[in-house]
């Protein structure tokens, strides 16, 4: 835990079995900036210096030899330091017993002086930290270069709800996707999450109820060849998905005895702010008015609205069946401050909630990344009993579209602003 046990702090102590473990984390982690072996810390410069002087010489020795080039960088939280101020601080560290040469470009070792100073920064309201100095050796740094190479800006095939590359990769990390595995996105769309999972070496499958987005794609740049999900895989030199299937997760064609075949199910369910959910069958009020089916081969099947509550019930039950024990389901649950309650996060007897993390999108609307793990084999009777005890899967968030687009008058806006202080995203200041 960080100084003061502040849960919102971006600095956390972890105990790891080896440096190798730390480097492996650095290779996959996208939200961890770096891992530092802390040599000393304090709330004042004097405390830091005293701590560093007390740090055992023997612990420093492997990293301070004459043949090891090094550099010290200053990183700040809550405020900025000018180049001159940074150099002053680095010079004040000269009492440390480094015998190697300073090398600014690709040194053997990198040391970090971390300065936390939020005192004059009003914008930090709820994330301010007490003043603190840390010094230590950087053991690993997160490699975020993957996000640049998969940036949506240069991706060939995109739709209005394509998952941002960073979030898609984070979803795959939550699901622990790796080579040797089979992954499914039941709401594949333009395949953004499939691309991220394929990058990590899994075999990927995508399904969607929308045949147009899945099969037809759209005209390529400059009106050339059409682009589709396959184009994105070709663009990144990834093996093609093992299967893309148009199906309805509510009435799906997976053979009934199929179980424990997937390691990960990752998806962004349709929730009706931009793309609403659909399932098979005619809308009840229109069922009598539809043209009779004359030729089943050319008939366009009717679809009807699919509430998020129903959709998530189907998703969790499908996951409970198709995941291997230990396999993970990762999906986004929309939320608004007025409607969200932890009790409404859907559950299943075979799945355990691992994480539920909020991403604030606007004042009225956020989404929560939910991670669940399958903890026991699927038991159809237990699942049926669980669902029978909760006959109505409707959730308050099924009104999401209305809530987000509701017109507020000035008085209501003012009241909302006063009753709930503006919430901020964390992690932007570091």
């Amino acid at each position, binding site marked *: 835990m960080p100084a003061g046990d502040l849960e919102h702090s971006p600095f956390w102590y972890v105990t790891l079995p080896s440096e190798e473990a730390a480097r492996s984390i650095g290779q996959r982690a996208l939200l961890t900036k770096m891992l530092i072996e802390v040599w000393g810390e304090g709330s004042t410069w004097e405390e830091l210096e005293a701590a560093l002087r007390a740090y055992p010489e023997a612990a420093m020795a492997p990293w301070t030899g004459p043949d090891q080039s090094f550099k010290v960088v200053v990183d700040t939280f809550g405020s900025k330091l000018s180049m001159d101020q940074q150099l002053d601080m680095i010079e004040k560290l000269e009492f440390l017993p480094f015998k190697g040469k300073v090398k600014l470009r690709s040194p053997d070792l990198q040391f970090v002086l971390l300065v936390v100073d939020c005192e004059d920064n009003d914008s930090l309201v709820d994330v301010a930290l007490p003043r603190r100095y840390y010094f230590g050796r950087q053991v690993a740094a997160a490699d975020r270069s993957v996000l640049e190479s998969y940036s949506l800006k240069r991706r060939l095939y995109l739709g209005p709800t394509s998952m941002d590359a960073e979030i898609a990769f984070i979803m795959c990390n939550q699901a622990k996707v790796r080579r040797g595995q089979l992954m499914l996105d039941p709401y594949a769309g333009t395949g953004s999450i499939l691309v991220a999972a394929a990058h990590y070496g899994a075999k990927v499958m995508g399904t969607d109820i929308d045949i147009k987005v899945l099969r037809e794609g759209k005209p390529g740049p400059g009106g050339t060849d059409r682009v*589709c999900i396959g184009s994105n895989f070709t663009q990144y030199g990834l093996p093609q998905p093992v299967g893309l299937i148009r199906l309805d997760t509510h009435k799906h064609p*997976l053979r009934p005895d199929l179980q424990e075949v997937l390691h990960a199910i990752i998806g962004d369910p349709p929730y009706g702010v931009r793309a609403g959910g659909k399932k098979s069958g005619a809308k009840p009020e229109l069922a009598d008015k539809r043209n009779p089916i004359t030729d089943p*081969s050319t008939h366009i099947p009717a679809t009807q609205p699919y509430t998020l509550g129903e959709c998530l019930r189907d998703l969790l039950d499908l996951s409970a069946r198709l995941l291997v024990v230990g396999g993970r389901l990762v999906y986004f649950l929309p939320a608004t401050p007025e409607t969200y309650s932890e009790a409404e996060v859907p559950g299943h007897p075979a799945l355990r909630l691992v994480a539920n993390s909020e991403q604030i999108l606007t004042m009225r609307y956020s989404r929560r990344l939910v991670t669940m793990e399958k903890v026991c084999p699927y038991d159809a009777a237990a699942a049926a009993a669980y669902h029978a005890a909760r006959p109505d899967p409707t959730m308050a968030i099924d009104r999401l579209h209305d809530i987000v687009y509701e017109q507020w008058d000035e008085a209501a806006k003012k009241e909302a602003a006063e009753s709930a202080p503006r919430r901020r995203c964390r992690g932007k200041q570091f």
Partner: protein
Amino acid sequence: MLSCHIKNVRNGYPFLIEVVKVSEHEADFDPDFLKHIFPRINWPAFLQGAVSLGCREGLPEEANESMLEDEGFLKRFHHALLEVFLEEGSLVCPETGRKFPVSKGIPNMLLNEDEC
């Protein structure tokens, strides 16, 4: 993995495959994945599909997990499972004869409203 899901259909598995066009593209050879998926595959149904797609050659009539130690078997299994695709054609329900069209490699499994 798929079976016919029209209501009241009991023997909807496995689908018969009507081939118009088959395509092949190379897939990453991953023995761990093959070992995971093998016990989940209904071998007779897999063979039936492989015959339809013309990639049955070299696959034994019966298979068991000990074969997974044989690199040659793994390579042939890998090829038939992951590198041969039904590009155009249909999946045909063995009970009702209902055809689910496959176009551009993508089966359209959506039911008409009188089927669900």
